[in-house]
């Protein structure tokens, strides 16, 4: 396998007494769309700023396109593009002027700039001060997507976009990826992550919590169980990887893959009346990690609305 496009090992960044990044690891392979997830304040934007060479780090190593993000920033930036989540524009420059300037300053050709302006339904002749939040975002997106970058760093790029524009954004990203572009996408919009991303990395408190494909993450996660038996269940034979509440003839909770067999045996002995098991939805999965820092050992609510959130994974 070729070297990863982004390779981060043990990154540490402190702001005063705060450890914004605390040994973070991140690997993004060539040609993939990599989801970068985590609760607010987890260090996503700090990581991206470090990858852009905007901030120096205290410890750890990082490489982007095989180069050092701090000392080779200019060389890296010629080959990539970035969209922040909160775009601020020059009040007296038009959107079109800003797009062309950003492309030129990257040394990129205009590429399909005009087509993108059209697709994002952007009026490039308006001045920066008159754009709404969503339109400022579009300006940065067009500038980033035009000119065929090898790498896209997207930090909540669709905040403020309407659903149709989100669809356009997804199409455009897929087209870029088909051309060989690599994407790091930080987002809180889980449907976006699920539609676009091959793999995801979830971070919390500046540390990497989980990384892998969505299917892998689901397997790591516990299975939701709801069972009714004809006689009281003896759960003493079920090993540690379970968090179950038994009331008389009802058992509910979560088990990991290893404890599942033991639970099934215990339930069988008590005489099964009904048994529901279910993979967690993506949203439950993230909620678990965001709230508890891992899939393991977390008390999971088995909501009455189980399974309503979304369908089973497609991958």
């Amino acid at each position, binding site marked *: 396998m070729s070297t990863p496009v982004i390779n981060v090992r043990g990154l540490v960044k402190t702001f*005063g007494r705060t450890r914004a990044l605390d040994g973070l690891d991140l690997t993004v392979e060539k040609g993939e769309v990599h989801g970068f997830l985590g609760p607010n304040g987890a260090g996503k934007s700090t990581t991206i*700023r470090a990858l*852009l*060479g*905007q*901030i*120096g780090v205290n410890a750890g190593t990082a490489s982007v396109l095989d180069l050092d993000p*701090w*000392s*080779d*920033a*200019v*060389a890296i*930036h*010629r080959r*990539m*593009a*970035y969209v*922040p989540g*909160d*775009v*601020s*524009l*020059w009040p*007296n*420059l038009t959107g079109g*002027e800003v797009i062309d*300037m*950003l492309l*030129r*300053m*990257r*040394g990129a050709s205009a590429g399909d700039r005009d087509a993108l302006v059209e697709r994002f339904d952007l009026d490039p002749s308006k001045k920066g001060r008159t754009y709404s939040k969503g339109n400022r975002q579009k300006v*940065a997106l067009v500038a980033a997507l035009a000119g065929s970058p090898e790498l896209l*760093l997207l930090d909540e790029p669709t905040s403020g976009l309407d659903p149709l524009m989100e669809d356009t954004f997804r199409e455009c990203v897929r087209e870029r990826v088909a051309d060989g572009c690599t994407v790091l996408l930080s987002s809180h919009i889980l449907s976006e992550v699920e539609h676009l991303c091959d793999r995801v990395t979830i971070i919390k408190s500046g540390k990497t919590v989980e990384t892998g494909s969505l299917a892998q993450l689901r397997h790591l996660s516990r299975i939701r169980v709801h069972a009714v038996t004809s006689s009281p269940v003896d759960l003493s034979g079920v090993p540690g990887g379970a968090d179950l509440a038994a009331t008389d003839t009802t058992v509910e909770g979560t088990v990991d893959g290893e404890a599942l067999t033991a639970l099934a045996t215990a339930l069988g002995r008590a005489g099964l009346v009904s048994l529901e098991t279910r993979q967690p939805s993506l949203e439950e999965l993230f909620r678990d990690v965001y709230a508890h820092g891992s899939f393991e050992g977390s008390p999971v609510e088995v909501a009455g609305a189980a399974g309503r959130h979304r369908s089973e994974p497609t991958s």
Partner: protein
Amino acid sequence: MTAAHGLAGTAGLLRLAMRRDRVMVAGWLAALVLTTASSAKATIDLYGDAAAGVAAAHAVNTNAALVAMYGPIFDERSMGSLAIFKLVLLFGALMTILFVVLVRRHTRLEEESGRADLVSATATGPQAPLAAAIVQAGGLALLLGVLVALGNIATGLPTAGSFAFGMAWAGLALFATALTAVIAQLFSSARTVAGMVATVMATLYVARAAGDATDTAWLVWLSPFGWASRMRAYAGEQWWPMALFALAFAVGVALSFWLRSRRDLGDGLIAARPGSPTGTLTGYGSLVLRLHRPGLVGWCLGLFALGAVLGSIAPSAAQFAGSTEVQDMLKRMGGSGLLKDAFLAIETSFMAVAAAAYGVSVVNRAHTEEVSGRLENVLAGGVSRIRLYAWVVGFALVSSTALLACFGLGTGLAFGRAESDVADQTGRLLAAAVGQSPATWAIVALSALAFGVRSSWAPVGWVFLVGSVVVGQIGELLDLPSWVIKASPFAHMPKMPVEQFEVTGAISVIVGLCVVAVVGGALAFRRRDVG
């Protein structure tokens, strides 16, 4: 990191800066060159015969207040010296604002707004924005120096002196550029950067003023304003102070690049302290007070200190013998009376301008709040428009008077101590300072009216303020009609402490117009669109 990488993209950023600033820079340059040339021409026309010019120059030099404010005239027989004596330092100080604005705008403000995030993700090096700002401001400094020199030459003044004057301005502009570049690395807040630069420049001006008034050479040479005046334009030019400017510029620029390499994008080297985790603000009034507290405290302390310096050097003004020319000049500038009082009266009237500037900045802060959308939040939170307007304008009016009081207290305590009469002098000079309030209110009220009618008109207050000052300084020279000169509210203030405070017709009219403007602004603010 190699220097080449750090500076990559500087040319592109320079083009961006020139594109953004073309109107502003062209306007400033034109205004500065025209003001300078027309004021020089007017002086030459006014003192057609040399004797009158010599007498006027002598009168200036024998008045410590004027020497403190404008610097000395080195050659009383030189028409050029007389023509530029108000321009070279006092207008020079105002001129440097352009360069502070430019450097701050393209460095710290870009980082604060987040636009630097977009730019730094392109193929631009981390030092490029700073380099572009310095090249732009430095280039304009030299251009301005050449243009004002050519303007003066066009009015018939000698070439060498005109270039000395131009280079003195260029030197001040380069100094302001380098100073702003350094201070912009220290603080993450653009507002703090502006405040710190203004404080340093004002301190350097006061150091030069105190040095000139008391004939203390080291104070003069401490300050770039001292260097500028010692280039002795039209009075046996000295060129070597240019080396001091060049040295200061080089050191400042190198220091700013070094500091930039030691910090992250968006951060300051001096970290912002964390604030209170809980809030005690109870309404819009307390929000206004909280937002302005740091700035107001700084201004109060600054004006108090300035007052103390001027109050303590006032007695030395009496050392100068009172010739008839001096008496004439003092009648014009500060009213008749004791020399010391006249000195204080002139300085006090200048402080009315500073206090008005603060008031205008308060009103303009509300405009900034509105543009950024924060005002909408307040109005959506149940604060009525009238209440909001009343707090902004009320605070602007009261705080400008409070600043005058701080200055009066400073002069009073220091002068009283020097004269061993603290109680009386404090009361007298406090009253003298506060007595200038109607003029500051007029400027603030007009600003409030403009803000009330349309948010983007709030800067009209600055135009009115600068216009009043310029007209007051050189209106007579330019032979402007008297109604133009009288449009400045400062022209109508009593020359306290020389004169007594009296509610003259003019003052009643000014206060009446203030009320009309403030109420009119309130009514307009209730009707207009917000945001």
